[in-house]
Structures are given as C-alpha cells and as structure tokens.
C-alpha cells in the first residue's frame, strides 16, 4: 500500500516529530508537558524503526521488536516520571520546572 511513498518521507516525518518534541522539552515550563514531549520523541523513533524494518528486514521483524521494547521503556518512563512530578508537587505545589530549585546540584 505504501509502495509509492519513499522511505525518506517516513524518515523525514519521524525526524520532524522528533524535533518538535525536542523543542517542546527545551521550551516548555510545565513538567507534565515535558513528559508528553518525551513521549512524542520516543514515538517518532518508533516510526523510523518500523520504516527501516519494513524496508531492510526482509526475513524477520527485528526492527519491530525494538519498537516493542521502546513501548516498554516509554511506559516505565512515564510512570516513574509522573511519580517524581507528583512527589515534587506534594513537596511544593508547582509543576513549573523553573520554580523547582530544590533539585539543583
């Protein structure tokens, strides 16, 4: 079905979403939005994995296996990340990363 779409289009879309997420991580103040942007970046890498796996992995689905592991790591990351945000919020009621100064070294 995607025979006419070049591989580069998928990789470019993946890169675009990755850098949108990266810009979000760098510019937003809200810690929960930063977590969402990290999820966007992880999902963008998934698209690159699947695209290359479809093109190059003619015998098996090794690229897709890595996508499954990215899913696992993303789930673990968002659970622990939100727990840290909630713990910091309980200490001081803000999710603003500019205001949380206690964690500075």
């Amino acid at each position, binding site marked *: 079905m*995607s025979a006419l779409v070049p591989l580069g289009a998928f990789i470019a879309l993946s890169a675009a979403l990755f850098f949108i997420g990266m810009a979000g991580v760098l510019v937003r103040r809200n810690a929960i939005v930063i977590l969402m942007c990290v999820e966007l970046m992880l999902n963008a890498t998934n698209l690159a994995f699947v695209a290359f796996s479809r*093109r190059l992995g003619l015998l098996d689905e090794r690229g897709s296996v890595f996508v499954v592991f990215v*899913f696992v790591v993303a789930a673990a990351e*968002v659970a622990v990340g939100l727990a840290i945000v909630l713990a910091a919020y309980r200490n001081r009621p803000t999710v603003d990363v500019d205001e949380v100064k206690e964690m500075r070294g």
Partner: protein
Amino acid sequence: MSLDIVGPLLFGLLAVLIVGAGLGVVLADRITTSALLMAFTFLNMAGMFVLLGAETIAAFQILIYVGAITVLILYGVMFTPQAPRAYGLFFQKQTTPGALIAAVAALPVMVVAFAFRDAASGPPRGGDLLPLASSLFTDFAFPFEVASVLLLAAMIGAIVLVKRE
C-alpha cells in the same frame, strides 16, 4: 482514481495531522488540550504503522500509547491543579536558545532523511504478528525478560515515590 494514489494520499493526510497535532502539544495553552492532542498524534501514528504494513505494532500503539499512557498523563494533570497564569509565563526563560538548538539540529537530519529515495516497503507480505512473535520469543527472549523486570521495577518505584508516610 487508481489504487496507487491512495497510499501517498493517506501518507500526506496522516503526516499533516501528526505534525499539526505535535505542534499543538508544544504550543497549546491548556495542558489538557496538550494531552488530548498527544493522544491524537499517537492515533495518527498508528495509522502510519498500518500504512507501513505493521498492523500488530499499530494495535500495540493504540493499546499502550493512546490508552494507557494518555490516561496516565491525564491522571497526572488531574493530581497537579495549577492556578491559571499569564501566557507570558508559558515558556521557559531559555525559550529562544532552546528553539534555535532544536531547529539547528533538525536541519542536517532532514537533509539526510530525504536522501532515502527508494520505496518504503517491499513486496506485500502477510501480517507482521508471526515474524514479530518468533523474533521476540527466540532471539530476543532474554531482553524480553529484562523488559518485564524493568516494568516491575518501574511499578515498585512509582508506588514508593508517591506513597505517603
């Protein structure tokens, strides 16, 4: 309309929706809007996986990202109520350098990405469930077990972090 045009059309539509919703996540004023736009991005990404012929991954994507992670994020939003604030406090102090760094890093990657000109998928095959499962449970059996230990550790860690004394 011949069937050959459907693939590129679908790709264009999904790409526009993904990039638009992704920008919306970064730029939306309300955090709930950001969360729902994130879910929308993930849903369109599942469509992209179907377009690539990875139906199992698309199903996982909907189950894990659109279902579990979005609900988890919405719980996080619910438990951290914020007073409404001025849009000027919306971005960090280092917004301009941050956006510049992202743009400068994006440029060479995009140039390299467009160098892959051959078609994205080879000849059509059956579903991807069988090859995926046979790879996962033979060659990647040990990483699979490590991943389950990671999930257990993350679950215990999250419980310990949010537990009240």
